[in-house]
């Protein structure tokens, strides 16, 4: 039996990839799907000759990085949602990067003061309203979502989803916990159905007549418009940039950080610089309809048609700081119940 176990182990080791520390590589732990990164990484390899390797998972990569410690093969972590990025900083897993290129490409409000993370894209959390049943201008702020007139007319995904948590965190930053709780209770009372599904599903629900208003990230809507099967659904809603007249629309980011243990540090910084470059930023903008973090790059034509976004200039750090309060608030209000 021991022989068989040994044989199994030998086969397993044989299937191991070649050592990750060979020259000309960069290793990525990614919370974003590999297929989204593929065009970017192909372009990177083409330009620099450096091979990019990816592990994608939606949870557990921070724990893996932490436990692997100084021997971890990972050079960079790519994440979505500011709170998750902040967690890497708090666990002291990422290192600061000083790079003129990065600092030139990424505006100050979209990067960590010591370079421990850089945003690569931003996405607005928008309101979508039925073209038939909601007049233009009838809703223009997040605050109005709690208004009685929307009773039984709103659909959202779970209040616990990181994108909603970030939005609620920003509400706490602007209005305080107590006011935000009242607001969230108001929104809950207006729900047409229990929170469920993803952001696209809420737009579908509007098309179905289940509700009239939903909240969702901008690129979901953009990607629906780009998919010929889903375009007719997306075309039934108008898009609203909430609070455009006031403090601005809540935005979240996707970002990149250098790990403290990076074995291929130079390549990793090259990758970070490349991803912030106009060339890569254009791929982000076109392929996934996100807003480029590099202010020198215009959003895709489709996104530009929606009109200009005025982002809330609340610091991302503050949104991350309020995360825990927001999560507990969602439980107290029993938003998903």
């Amino acid at each position: 039996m021991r022989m068989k176990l040994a044989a199994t182990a030998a086969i397993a080791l044989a299937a191991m990839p070649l050592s990750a520390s060979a020259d000309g590589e960069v290793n990525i732990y990614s919370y974003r799907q590999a297929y989204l990164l593929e065009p970017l990484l192909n372009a990177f390899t083409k330009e620099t000759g450096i091979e990019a390797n990816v592990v994608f998972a939606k949870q557990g990569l921070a724990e893996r990085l932490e436990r692997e410690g100084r021997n971890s093969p990972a050079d960079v972590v790519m994440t979505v949602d500011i709170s998750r990025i902040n967690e890497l900083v708090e666990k002291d897993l990422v290192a600061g990067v000083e790079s003129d290129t990065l600092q030139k490409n990424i505006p100050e409000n979209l990067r960590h003061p010591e370079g421990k993370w850089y945003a690569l894209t931003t996405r607005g959390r928008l309101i979508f309203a039925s073209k038939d049943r909601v007049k233009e201008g009838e809703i223009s702020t997040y605050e109005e979502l709690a208004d009685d007139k929307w009773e039984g007319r709103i659909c959202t995904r779970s209040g616990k989803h990181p994108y909603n948590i970030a939005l609620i965190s920003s509400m706490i930053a602007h209005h305080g916990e107590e006011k935000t709780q009242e607001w969230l209770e108001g929104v809950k009372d207006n729900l047409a159905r229990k929170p469920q599904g993803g952001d696209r599903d809420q737009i579908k629900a509007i098309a179905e007549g289940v509700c009239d208003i939903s909240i969702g990230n901008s690129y979901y809507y953009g990607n629906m418009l780009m998919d010929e099967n889903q375009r007719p659904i997306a075309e039934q809603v108008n898009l609203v940039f909430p609070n455009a007249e006031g403090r601005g629309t809540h935005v979240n980011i996707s970002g990149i950080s250098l790990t403290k243990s990076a074995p291929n540090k130079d390549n990793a910084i090259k990758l970070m610089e490349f991803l912030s470059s106009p060339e890569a930023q254009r791929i982000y903008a076109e392929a996934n309809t996100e807003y480029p973090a590099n202010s020198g790059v215009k959003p895709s034509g489709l996104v530009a048609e929606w009109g200009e976004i005025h982002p809330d200039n609340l610091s991302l750090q503050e949104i991350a700081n309020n995360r825990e309060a927001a999560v507990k608030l969602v439980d107290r209000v029993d938003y998903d119940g």
Partner: protein
Amino acid sequence: MTEVVTSANPGLAQPLLAKRTSKRWLISAFITTAIVALPVLSVLFLALFPEENIWPHLLETTLPRYLTTTIKLMVGVGALTLVIGLATAWAVTMCEFPGRKFFEWALLLPFAIPAYVIAYVYTSLLDYAGPVQRALREWFGWQNASDYWFPEIRSLEGAILMIGLVLYPYVYLLGRAAFLEQSPSLFAVSRSLGHSALSTFFRVVLPIARPAIAVGLSLVLMETLNDFGTVDFFAVQTLTRGLFDTWMNLGNLGGAAQIATTMLMFVVILVTLERYSRRRQQQYAARDNRDPIHRFTMSFPRQMICVAVCAVPLIFGFIIPGASLGYYAWEYFDVSWNPDFIRNTFNSLFLSGAAALTTLIIGVTLAYSRRLHNTRGMQVLMRLSSLGYAMPGAVLAVGVIVPLAGFDNWLDTLMRDHLGVSTGLLLSGTAFALIFAYTVRFLAVSAGSVESALQKVTPSMDMASRSLGHTPGKTLMKVHLPILRGTLVTAALVVFVDCMKELPATLILRPFNYETLATYVYQFASDEQLYHSALPALIIVLAGIIPIILMNRSISNSRTVA
């Protein structure tokens, strides 16, 4: 020549078996269990260090709902799988009706469909924009959702149906094997004593099959308990939901580990209760394959009832979702087809095969060691080694990382300090880590079924073999393994199919650029576009079908039927 002993004192035969046995079995069982139990122990360890005490907040807010929903889900899925699994198993084993041979293996097919895939398929079929509601609207002239009522698939009931439809084969499989193993003369005796067929089923057949059914049901319940994909998709708020919330949103891994531990205890209590309730039973059956099963010949209407009983779970659990996947695969063939496809398939097959083999070897070692040394300590070891199944895959993955990375870094430091070389990470992030995780996770499946089958082999077999001068090892090879062949193949293949579908642990532990079919499907499914990966999803299903057919052969061959 069939013999069934129901002994009031199961321990009686044991000393005879253990006599003159070297300690080798005991030691190898102990070491294996210790290694396999490491991930679970790591999670228990993490539970000691929460970021903050999560319970006051949970108790005050969502915990009561998480608990009641979890219990409802488990009771619902448990009842559904029992009804479907036992009714179909009984029908194909004991009744003669058209298509029986086909249903025998076809009823296993839903097992090849991952729960998150069936949930997705039914949602797209049954939601507002899906073909069913669209057709209804056209027929009745309804305009929108407010004009009519339609059951909401994304609900607790929906989740019970989805999970039940793909998990009932556990009960069916183990139930059928148990029915096949039963001596027909028992049934005949009961009938001659004046019991109806139905009454015999409940009073004789079920009690005898209970250990096997209990194994099947506990697998179903554990899998239900730690399902995240389906309940998340359907917004059903179970404990797993609370666990991930605590981990991902509150950044409190320790708190999450505490919830996982609570869920573990839930399972341990369930299994213990079941065992306790039959603590005074011990069944031994010397099987005699020459004693054939006589199937009921029935009137035509009754035969049709049998056909219906078998056809319904097959249609809803396999044909509809399989056809939908096929349709998507066809429609989106251009985006689905991908040069990496063959490599991903190979990775899936390789990992699943290796894990199936490993779990089988360990499962046999443990079960046989327990037969030789049925001590309290041995029983605890067995239970401990099966706990990986009762934990959500992602949590278990962290439990795997802790000891593996710990070992790697310990060795690395040692080598650096003494030899000045760095060995880096030897095990973490390799296929070994994945196979280890699968083994830990699915050992319950193989160890459980091997153990329950081994228990039924009468100790007189061992005694005969040993008195002829065979060592315990030789007895295992010459006597038990041939007798258990059907069970062994079944156990290995169930693990194989389970590994093909495994997702959360694979995602976290895999090497760079390493995709299995399941992870490839997931990256699209998690972005709300499963249809882009319908083709690989279909391959998971097809790859699952082959072992299912083999599995069926080995079970059917284990018994001649008149």
